[in-house]
């Protein structure tokens, strides 16, 4: 079977600019903290099938956007290879460009003086879409994304949510075979996010051969939409499977969630017997700490409670729960996504 996307040992290292290095030498200069080479992608190997809605799940700085930029032909890898629609991204970018499109969350594409319709039409022309076809598609998509009443509004007058919907229309108007969505629902309200998710899912499911690579750090989004998910952290893919199978990897473990008074330190839980991994997050407004534990041995709960009480903290609730993707992530990475 032909893969829509395939990567092999993809590495991308960002070297700091000479300017930054120079500033680093100057003790009073700013921006000189820890700017060595950064490995954004570390031997990433993955295969995405045609017709798949594939998720890339990871925290900020995990390497998701770097991978998308490489696959979109905007960035070259330092080493390794990648193919999109059967073409090598390093050697043969133009045939790839005819078959892909990309939408990033929070992007500001186009020109503020053009209307929503005009902006999307302009981008469609860069892909050679027949003008009449483009206009018909734009109108259809404007209706679907609830932007019809803003069709003739200048882009600079759109709200950020409306602008993101326009960007989504820009992504779909060229009818790509492979669509890259980089945090497409970032900062959007619940309704706008829902409209986008539903359309993306329907677009992949109802048409043959359409592929979506979606990056997100919203667990529920990935869980609900994706056929398969790769968990990425610090440039490395830690696991790749269906959401169900990923959750199954920790089925022998137990997940406990606790909310307690703000803890002075969570270090007491590190290396505790029976604790596979855990995450903690303080909520300053409620003066509490939320803890999630992945336990290999359920009896570790009593040690956890003792450690909490030893800090004089009161327990607000304790709950045993079904494993979620977030738990899978905590189990693998040792911290939550946010």
């Amino acid at each position, binding site marked *: 079977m032909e893969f829509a996307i395939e990567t092999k040992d993809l590495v991308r290292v960002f070297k700091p600019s000479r300017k930054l290095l120079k500033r680093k030498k100057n003790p009073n200069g700013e921006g000189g903290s820890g700017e060595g080479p950064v490995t954004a992608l570390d031997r990433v190997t993955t295969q995405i099938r045609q017709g798949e809605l594939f998720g890339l799940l990871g925290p900020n700085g995990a390497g998701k956007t770097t991978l998308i930029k490489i696959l979109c032909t905007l960035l070259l890898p330092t080493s390794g290879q990648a193919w999109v629609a059967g073409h090598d991204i390093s050697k043969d970018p133009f045939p790839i460009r005819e078959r892909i499109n990309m939408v990033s969350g929070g992007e500001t594409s186009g020109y503020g003086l*053009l209307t929503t319709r005009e902006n999307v039409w302009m981008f469609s022309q860069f892909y050679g879409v027949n003008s009449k076809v483009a206009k018909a598609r734009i109108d259809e998509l404007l209706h679907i994304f609830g932007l019809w009443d803003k069709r003739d509004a200048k882009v600079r007058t759109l709200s950020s949510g409306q602008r993101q919907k326009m960007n989504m229309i820009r992504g779909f108007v060229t009818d790509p075979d492979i669509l890259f969505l980089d945090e497409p629902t970032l900062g959007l309200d619940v309704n706008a996010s829902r409209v986008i998710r539903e359309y993306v899912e329907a677009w992949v499911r109802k048409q043959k051969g359409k592929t979506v690579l979606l990056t997100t750090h919203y667990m529920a989004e990935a869980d609900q939409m994706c056929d398969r998910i790769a968990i990425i952290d610090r440039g490395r893919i830690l696991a790749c499977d269906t959401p169900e199978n990923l959750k199954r990897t920790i089925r022998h473990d137990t997940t406990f969630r606790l909310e307690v008074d703000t803890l002075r330190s969570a270090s007491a839980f590190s290396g505790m017997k029976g604790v596979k991994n855990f995450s903690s997050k303080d909520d300053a407004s409620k003066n509490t700490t939320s803890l999630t534990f992945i336990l290999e041995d359920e009896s570790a709960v009593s040690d956890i409670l003792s450690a909490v009480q030893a800090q004089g903290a009161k327990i607000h609730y304790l709950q045993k729960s079904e494993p979620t993707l977030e738990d899978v992530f905590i189990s693998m990475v040792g911290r939550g996504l946010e």
Partner: protein
Amino acid sequence: MSATVRRQWRTFKWAAWLGWEMDSNWTEPALFIVYSVVKPVAGAFILVLMYIVFAAIGNYRDPAMFSYIYVGNSFFIFVGSTLFGTFQVIQADREWYQTLRYTYISPISYYTYIVGRAASKVAVGGLAVLITLIFGVFVLGVQFQMTLGSVPIFFVGLVLGLFCLVSIGICLAGVSFMTAKHTHGLAEGIPGIFYVFCGVLFPLTALPGWAQSFGRGIPLTYWFDLTRRLILPPNTIDSGLGFFSDLEILALLLASSLIFFLLSLGIFKLGEYMARKAGKIDMTTSY
């Protein structure tokens, strides 16, 4: 120092630092200085060649007129750098860095902030003026003659001239609040007004009557005339202002500068008000 003055001084200092960083941090400081000087010197060379061509065609040398043109053009570098330094702040912060909205809502005087941002351009412009003049005098034979007694008046004139330029720049900044991104047109066109009507490169008398009257209403006309009187030897060129004494010219410069300062306060406030009313404070107009 009162709290208000201290606050204004702090704003100015901080904005001047920011302006310098924005202008210069793309390259080495030495290269930046060279860059800042090459542009105006090349501009001066255009005039030198115009004179040479004219002289070669008619076989007619006119060193007094050449010095008149050259000195006017050298000091005109201040006009370009100060005006551009002030009005481009609005357009750069609004459209390029997209920080205008954040600076604007901070509790500082935006007027002082713009003046501060322009300071580095004025300073670098000053260096370019100096280099152009030195080059003119020692390489191109520009006539230079200045008495010790003229020095105080020269510097008072310089300060007033710059003060006036900043005021005009602020007027343009006020207008910029309402217009699309026309940085280039403004940078080229507005100085053009002064180039033509203020006797910068040629005496006012070369202009038609109505244009001469218009020129006499602009303070820079007096500044350029005063500067040339103080640093060039006496000549037969009819500048159109010969009937005023040096001190009278200085008084006219002072009066007209004050009027322009008040005008700048009004136009800037009006521009701000209208932009807020029309929702244009943080618009982007690139295409």
